[in-house]
């Protein structure tokens, strides 16, 4: 896929010049509370799964990466461009956790509007919008107002708008939340495709999503990165590790008693695995996005 991104009046061809996201010691403080605490990262092409309990600082970190929340300290650059500049934003695609839309716009109008915001020329915007509507399976509903869409359709529209400008950096904040199993698998495939040529930062609570598509894992706890890198099988099961790290917090939030270690977690893990298996089975090769085992799909991305 030929991909060009405008940077400072010129174009960077992302196939030849690898784009790097540098997060240099960023923090975000609100009065006495530190939400993100001195996080440093260097991300290159691939899918990065960002895990963490509620309130761990994932969304805050993602907002800072998207330039919509100013860090209290530190700096962020993409291909050498700071997050405050237009060139940075022209390389960015973002799907927020709580995806907002204009209820009276049709799906097509919404994409054309977002394309104009992203600086796509009119003709290109039309072409790209139609491509993406087809990709996310909304061609039939493109002329309907968004307020008539189901949650899953809105989420698919959200991912389509994030991909409009062929971003070098795609930030997805819990993109599979609220999707049915079939749509989740479809989403994973879209994300995997995007990760072949872009930096994809994916935040989720659902460990199986990350296990299936992420090349690297980033784990946050209380504003700090507690794990960063590829998950090696020798370290054991990712979900078990995740639950060991955040089990107490999740439990406190849910107001439940902590189950005996191993027993309760095992139950949760089992149900998630069951879901994953089911979705993989439901996934049909006929939809044009491939249909083999998920590990096999992601295999192409393994570096």
């Amino acid at each position, binding site marked *: 896929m030929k991909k060009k991104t405008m940077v400072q009046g010129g174009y960077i061809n992302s196939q030849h010049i690898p784009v790097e996201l540098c997060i240099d010691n960023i923090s975000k403080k609100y009065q006495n509370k530190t939400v993100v605490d001195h996080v440093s990262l260097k991300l290159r092409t691939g899918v990065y799964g960002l895990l963490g309990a509620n309130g761990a600082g994932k969304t805050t970190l993602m907002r800072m990466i998207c330039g*919509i929340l100013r860090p209290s300290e530190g700096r962020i650059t993409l291909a050498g461009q700071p997050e405050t500049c237009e060139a940075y934003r022209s390389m*960015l695609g973002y799907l927020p956790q709580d995806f907002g839309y204009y209820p009276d716009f049709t799906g097509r109008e919404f994409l054309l509007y*977002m394309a*104009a915001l992203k600086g796509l020329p009119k003709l290109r915007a039309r072409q790209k919008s139609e491509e993406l509507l087809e990709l996310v399976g909304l061609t039939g509903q493109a002329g309907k107002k968004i307020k008539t869409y189901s949650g899953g359709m809105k989420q698919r529209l959200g991912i389509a708008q994030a991909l409009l*400008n062929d971003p070098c950096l795609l930030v997805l904040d819990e993109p599979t939340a609220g999707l049915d199993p079939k749509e989740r698998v479809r989403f994973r495939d879209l994300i995997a495709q995007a990760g072949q040529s872009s930096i994809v930062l994916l935040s989720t609570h659902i460990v199986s999503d990350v296990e299936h598509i992420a090349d690297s894992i980033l784990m946050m706890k209380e504003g700090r990165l507690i794990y960063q890198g590829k998950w090696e099988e020798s370290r054991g099961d990712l979900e078990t590790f995740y639950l060991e790290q955040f089990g107490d917090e999740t439990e406190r939030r849910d107001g439940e008693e902590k189950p005996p270690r191993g027993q309760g977690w095992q139950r949760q893990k089992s149900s998630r695995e069951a879901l994953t298996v089911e979705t993989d089975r439901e996934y049909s090769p006929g939809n044009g996005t491939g249909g083999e085992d998920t590990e096999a799909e992601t295999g192409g991305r393994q570096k």
Partner: protein
Amino acid sequence: MSQLGILYQYEMKKILKKKMTWISFCGVVLVMAFCCFGVLLNRYVLTDAQTGESVYYSAYERAMDRQARGEKFNGRLIDDILLREMQAAYADVQTQEQERVTDNAATNVSAVTTAEVPDDPAEAERLSQQRRQYEAIYNYVRGVVGNEEVHTVDAAAFYRARQQMIRDYEQALCLTEGEQEYWRRHEAQTPCVYYWDMGVSMMLASSRTMLALTALMIGMVFSGVFADEHIRKTDQLVLCSRHGRGMLYLAKLLAAMTLAAAAALLVGGATLLSFGVVYGYGESWNAPLQIYLESSPFALTMGQGIVILLVLLLLATVLHSVLALVLSCWTRSGVASMSLMMVYTLGTLFANVPERLRLLSQCLYLSPAKAVCASAFYDARLVGGAGHYLTFWQTGMLLYPLLALGLALLGGLIYRRWQICGR
């Protein structure tokens, strides 16, 4: 089409798709229509003193009757000849002084005019008809010289009395010598020519209502421009897009300004057309402003006065649209910014500062709510110095675009600093 043009179209679409836009616009049009035509719904009754018979007639018939009589004097100089004719017609009218107790219990003496009623009904009717022919001139002259003098005044005394009213205003407004000198050089010519002015004076009088209604409409429609992005959580999408922090702000601003200007033109144009249809303008367009505002120092025609107020209305509405946008951007709450717009509009409409506090008072009277008003043509205070002065409307035409520009820049700074947090 450029990206700005495309974004501008979408922003227009967003505003025009809101129910509030159409509800508030229709509300303004309805109120203005009521202002124009509501008065015509009244009925009058005329009872014959001899027979006791009552004749009902509509306000429209009454207005047309008065207009037909008033228009007979169109183009006539208010000079000794006309004044003598009028005084002859009113020769049977005497002035009596009568004591009247006002609401605040202070005792005032006011003059009331009463006509001698002859015994012969035919003679009484003839005299009544004769008086009614000169009613328009009588009322106008009486407004300047008072109830007593109207029966004896000559042209020189009439213009002296009017000049004295202007001087009294100048004293009350604390004009400087330089300002007084300015008005000596620019004052209206005498003798002035009379025109029946119902249509144009109604139009001038309704300018304040138009301003207040459009300001409230602007507050209701544009308070949500930025606030809705925050409430719908679309701000996080637009702010991280390439043109989301710069060009989008400009597109929103241009869309709001265009729609505000269109609303002002539509409301102003519809009101102008309505009064024109009901009363007609005819030659009254060329009547001196002093026919409606007797002691105004401005050497303008009524038509010029209307054009000035409509241009000021247009500029003020655009200024209000920018203000509403900035408030929306600052508060990120439609209700809060709408409330602030209401406080601003009603506050400047009803606030008053004594003229002796010259600077404060003049600043208030340069605000759109005071300046887009027929009575602003009484305001002889000027802006400037060293022989170079601007009147209130000249200042307004420079000040409002500058204020709009300043507010737009301030809004731009606020928007660029917009952060997504606390959700």
